[in-house]
């Protein structure tokens, strides 16, 4: 009797486990596909939403069938890690992050060399691309990707709160600290300032603070420099803004979605974030503060207002793909001037100079945002994270002092420790 019970429960659980296992495995991919089927892997992004609507036009025009696989950011890197590692030819066109994975992928030989292709077509005009983004998609002198989305950090703020407090839009970091403090004191339940707090997630948005204070992750000699007096001050300022004037129950896990939620629910007066996410704040469907949100350049530190200006996403071709010609046709189509203009008007900043010069290119942007972007494109820095091969590891190291500062700890000591660890990582990579 007892034994049969065990057996039944055993079978039941086995069936259960098997069921969930199978369900987890079923998300495979279509497979098959000759040269007329192009497999494109994209990330969840506004850019992707727009391009997906247009793909039927491309299919009709070229006779190529496009299969789109779409993932969240983390799932996308997992996909690449598994498939590219295995040398799979299941991906033809891949949307990737030049600053995050670019060096690693290029070094591993995952990316096809596009140097000849970009210069072939004068109408498509490679020279039209901004210099910073082009540098980030070039590895060892070879072009391995075409930048499609750029980002600059800007200051999001609440016009109504500033007005009620009788304050001007902060021009310097000291203004920002003072304004955040005043608004927090005058408005119970509203934070003066909010931003990303997760160790790795915060690094990119912290970088503009670092640059504006005159620091950088790596100095001119290629040495770790996250414990310079400038860097220490930047860590302390970012930390103070959140620890002293941030939301009451601040967590150390916030990425942009959590921080954006606090801002758009009316929980904060100031928020520094990438401009490419501005629609989240201005769209009444997502945002309670959509009609009072304003934009400004990153407040100036001792070294001026220096936001990052980076290509956050690019399109590349899988070296193992047997369909590289069609892959390039797709990229050429998706990144043409007309397409870039259209996508940029829909709210996704691109990397083409001609589109930025065209008044129509910024016609749909809030005027103050367009102005802030123009300033960051001019004095912007071309990276927002340490440019190394092991970016994820480096981000965790240089992000540690941010978290320590946010939680009110000794960020100077943390910066010294981080510098040591970061230098070890650099030494290891330069071996």
């Amino acid at each position, binding site marked *: 009797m007892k034994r049969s*019970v065990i057996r039944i429960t055993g079978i039941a659980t086995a069936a259960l486990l098997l069921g969930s296992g199978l369900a987890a495995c079923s998300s495979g991919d279509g497979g098959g596909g000759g040269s007329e089927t192009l497999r494109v892997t994209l990330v969840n992004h506004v850019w992707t939403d727009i391009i997906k609507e247009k793909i039927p036009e491309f299919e009709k025009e070229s006779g190529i069938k496009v299969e789109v696989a779409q993932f969240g950011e983390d799932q996308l890197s997992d996909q690449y890690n598994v498939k*590219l*590692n295995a*040398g799979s030819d299941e991906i033809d066109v891949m949307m990737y992050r030049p600053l995050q994975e670019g060096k690693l992928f290029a070094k591993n030989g995952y990316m096809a060399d596009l140097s000849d292709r970009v210069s072939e077509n004068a109408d498509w005009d490679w020279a039209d691309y901004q210099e910073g983004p082009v540098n980030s998609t070039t590895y060892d002198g070879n072009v391995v990707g075409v930048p499609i989305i750029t980002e600059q950090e800007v200051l999001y703020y609440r016009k109504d709160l500033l007005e009620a407090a009788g304050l001007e839009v902060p021009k310097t970091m000291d203004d920002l600290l003072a304004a955040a403090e005043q608004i927090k004191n005058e408005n119970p339940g509203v934070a003066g300032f909010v931003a990303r707090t997760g160790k790795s997630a915060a690094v990119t948005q912290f970088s503009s603070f670092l640059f504006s204070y005159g620091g950088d992750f790596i100095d001119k000699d290629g040495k770790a420099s996250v414990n310079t007096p400038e860097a220490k001050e930047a860590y302390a300022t970012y930390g103070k803004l959140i620890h002293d004037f941030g939301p*009451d*129950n601040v967590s150390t*896990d916030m*990425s942009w979605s959590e921080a954006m939620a606090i801002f758009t629910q009316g*929980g904060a007066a100031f928020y520094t974030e990438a401009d490419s996410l501005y629609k989240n704040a201005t769209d009444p469907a997502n945002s309670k503060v959509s009609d009072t949100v304003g934009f400004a350049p990153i407040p100036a530190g001792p070294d001026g207002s220096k936001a990052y200006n980076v290509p956050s996403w690019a399109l590349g071709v899988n070296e193992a793909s047997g369909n590289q010609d069609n892959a390039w046709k797709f990229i050429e189509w998706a990144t043409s001037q007309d397409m870039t203009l259209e996508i940029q008007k829909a709210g996704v900043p691109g990397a083409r100079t001609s589109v930025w010069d065209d008044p129509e290119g910024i016609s749909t942007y809030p005027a103050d945002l367009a102005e802030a972007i123009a300033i960051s494109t001019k004095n912007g820095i071309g990276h927002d994270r340490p440019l190394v091969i092991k970016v994820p590891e480096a981000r*965790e190291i240089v992000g540690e002092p941010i978290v320590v500062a946010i939680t009110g700890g000794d960020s100077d000591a943390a910066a010294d420790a981080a510098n040591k660890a970061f230098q070890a990582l650099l030494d290891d990579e330069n071996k």
Partner: protein
Amino acid sequence: MTATTSIRTSPQKTFSDWANRHRKWLFASPAMIIVGLLIAIPLVWTIYLSLTNSEGSVRSEHDFIGFDNYAEVFADFDRFWPAVWRTFLFTGGVLIVELVLGMAIALLLWRPFRGERWVRVAILLPLVATPVAVGMMWKLIFDPNIGFANQMLAFFGIPAQPWLSGELTALPTLMFVDIWQWTPMVVLILLAGLTSLSDEPDEAARIDGANSWQRFWFVTLPLMRSTVIVAILLRSIDALKTFDILYATKGKGGGSFHEVETLNVYAYGLSFDYNDYGVASAVLIIFFLLIIAIMWAITFRRKEKASK
């Protein structure tokens, strides 16, 4: 005569005799070989990788470095040992609570009562939800600012708690989520065991004047021993390899302080985030050996007791 002997000793005959005697192995062997290969190949490959300095891409050049990775891992008191400790704290913690709670609920459901079916369905609900979805749901509930948990505390005038975001509270909070989700399975297993028990020993004890606690402790529980062991085995294997809810709520690295980083999360980060395949493989092999040792200890004790 010679002909028959030759038939008897012919290779075909010997083979078919042998095949007849071993037919249960013979027919099962293709499946066993495939399953064996499916287990062996990745395992051997992981062991091999753990002895190399492979990083970046598994296809790129790497050197054989012996046990250096293991030495590195064992000397890592920042991430590895805390991860080991958290893995066992998590597993042990949820196991004890789930067993006690599961047994209590199973005893309540044991005897027929009105509305029994509805109660059973309600209790089983958490079990059918996908762990990642469960993680997302609790992440929302425990959100420090807009989450339901803190709103409810505020309603009763209790200050907001950091729940998932606190360095010390995150792991206990996730243990609570695991208990919420998996106690029903323990209830299911124990209830199946309880309903199959015969009533006589219990009645005999009742006639002898044993109170309900004595009847549970000295009669029901010993009879339930094998069922309880099954529950322990299934739950501990599952809890040891918990990944989904940790990843869904705290992301890579188990949060900014690695506060919920178990061995699984650590190995995942090493391979998928850091692309450090050599070290990641070493961690996984160590984890694998640990699990085998524990499972062996549990089942071995059971066999020993059974043979007494």
